[in-house]
């Protein structure tokens, strides 16, 4: 009882002080008010809306009026033949992107940083940033044009060099992930070097000089001076990427899909879109799949972050 009294006794003047302190900042509070309202309406209210995953959504009843059905839609998804397929495709595409796409910007940044000519460096930088500004729609349009077996550049080259036409890459499930991943690397590898370049610019030149005096070659200096300097940046980016593993971007996959490669190109997010907008309007079922995906992402992020923190490395929080 005494402790409660204590709390009340101490709490009262404290909260009054807080109130006064907060009132002093009423202008700052006013600034944040609109962003907070935005946040509640457009971000947090839809989170409540995710409850339709556990309901049978009927438009005339609305989100709150529809009937609860428990895990019905989750069960339906886990039992459908699409479950294994979309999960596997999502996993394969993202793992492939990570393994192939993650080291390349690092290597590129290290090599670029080690070069001497300033002009050459700047030229490579400018050109390698360029593809990043091309929109996803145009990138996919470019791939389709260039790899067109009849009129595309790759088709024409294949015809004249190997004497046989190029197979239709967009029509074969086997080549989908390669096209997706490598066009992504073409587009974003250069842009991805920026963050490492920033870290490399912070390396003390004295370290390089000392290593040079000790007889370290340029290559050795990359391994023992540059690489350790950007290790924290690498770790943080690896955490973020690994945490986003199961959220392959909808945009590019959706554009690259054809009826013929669907077997290896249908991923969770495109499936959600089709279930709700193309093949019908099964909003509840689609929400269940989306929610399932969100939860996997969250768990993955927490696990990866926890592991790196346990190992004593950098962590996100």
């Amino acid at each position, binding site marked *: 009882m005494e402790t409660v009294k204590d709390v009340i006794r101490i709490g009262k003047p404290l909260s009054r002080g807080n109130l006064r*302190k*907060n009132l002093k*900042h009423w*202008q*700052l*509070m006013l*600034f*944040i008010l609109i*962003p*907070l309202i935005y*946040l509640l*309406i*457009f*971000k947090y209210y839809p*989170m409540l*809306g*995710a409850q*339709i995953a556990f309901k049978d959504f009927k438009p005339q009843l*609305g*989100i709150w009026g529809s009937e609860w059905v428990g895990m019905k839609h989750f069960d339906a998804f886990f039992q459908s033949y699409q479950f294994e397929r979309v999960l596997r495709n999502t996993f394969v595409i993202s793992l492939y992107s990570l393994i192939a796409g993650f080291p390349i910007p690092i290597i590129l940044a290290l*090599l670029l940083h*080690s*070069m*001497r000519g300033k002009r050459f460096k700047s030229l490579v930088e*400018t050109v*390698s940033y*360029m593809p990043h*500004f*091309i*929109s996803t*729609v*145009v990138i996919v*349009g*470019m791939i389709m*044009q260039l790899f067109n077996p*009849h*009129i595309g*550049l790759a088709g024409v080259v294949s015809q*004249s060099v190997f004497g046989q036409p190029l197979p239709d890459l967009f029509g074969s499930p086997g080549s989908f992930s390669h096209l997706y991943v490598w066009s992504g690397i073409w587009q974003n590898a*250069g842009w991805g070097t*920026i*963050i490492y370049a*920033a*870290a490399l610019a912070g390396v003390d030149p004295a370290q390089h000089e000392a290593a*040079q*005096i000790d007889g370290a*070659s*340029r290559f050795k200096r990359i391994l023992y001076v540059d690489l350790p300097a950007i290790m924290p*940046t690498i770790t943080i980016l690896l955490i973020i990427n690994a*945490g986003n593993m199961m959220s392959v971007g909808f*945009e590019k996959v*959706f554009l690259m899909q054809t009826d013929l490669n669907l077997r290896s190109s249908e991923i969770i997010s495109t499936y*959600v879109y089709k279930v*709700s907008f193309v093949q019908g309007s099964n*909003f509840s079922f*689609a*929400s269940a799949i*989306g929610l399932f995906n969100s939860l996997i*992402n*969250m768990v993955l992020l927490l696990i990866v972050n926890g592991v790196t923190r346990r190992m004593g490395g950098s962590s996100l929080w």
Partner: protein
Amino acid sequence: MEQAVAIDKRRNNIQVTKGDRFYYMVVGLLLTLLLIVLIYPIIYIVSASFSSANAVTSGKVLLWPVDPGLDGYRAVFKHSLFFRSFENSFVYTLIGTLLNLSMTIIAAYPLSRRDMPFKGLIMFLFTFTMIFSGGMIPDYILLKDLSMIDTIWALALPGSINVVYLIIMRTFMMHSVPSELLEASQIDGCSDTKYFFRILLPLSGPVIAVVTLYYAVGHWNNYFHALLYMYTPEKFPLQLILREILIANTMETNMVSDPSLAEAQQSLADLLKYSLIILSSAPLLILSPFVKRFFAKGAMIGAIKG
């Protein structure tokens, strides 16, 4: 002799060894190769777009335009929705970016102040939306309930604050604007609002430029939200029209009975794609070397842990 010494001095008196010279050669070669891989597809598409339809379909274009002409571009300009969608994209980008900017700035300012009450809590509310969201369907139902579907607001409002850019801006305001300015202005009796308009905003020019560019490029290149929320073709942004022509392969072809004419039209449709790619990407591609520095700066500010 003297010259050699002078050069040596510039290089910190450390000579480049034979092994290093070999290293520079190999890496230089590698990077040159990479340069070609990166630039060649772009050059090819530019050249193809300026060639004749026949030359492109028969594979004669390899590096430079063959039978130079503007047929492809003429065909693009004839497309009924091209200019309309270009205009739409421009308006969506302009209004969307303005909204983004004002929302992000008024959120970043209080959160950058060390004495802001509930700062940690509010920051958490923002960052949490990065790892969890309601998803595609609840977003859609909300916009439908607000009757924003098929209006510009469906494109502009839901993503009006990008949390990553918010962190970039807040970091800049915290670390690159000297805190002495705030103290000095407070002593002079400057209110929080006045400090914002008179001192902080004019000093935040660089970060505002960076974030503006990020947002604008995002709006210009986005098709996904328009795909979900826009129904009237006259309101489509450029990217959605591009998708229809480049990927879904729907063309406005007049009914032609003559097969040779139809064939010519098909190859013109292919040529048109190259011209379309160039026309839609040119504004950003030409701009990219100039804004390169800005973007790089933004990425660096963002790299500092908020």
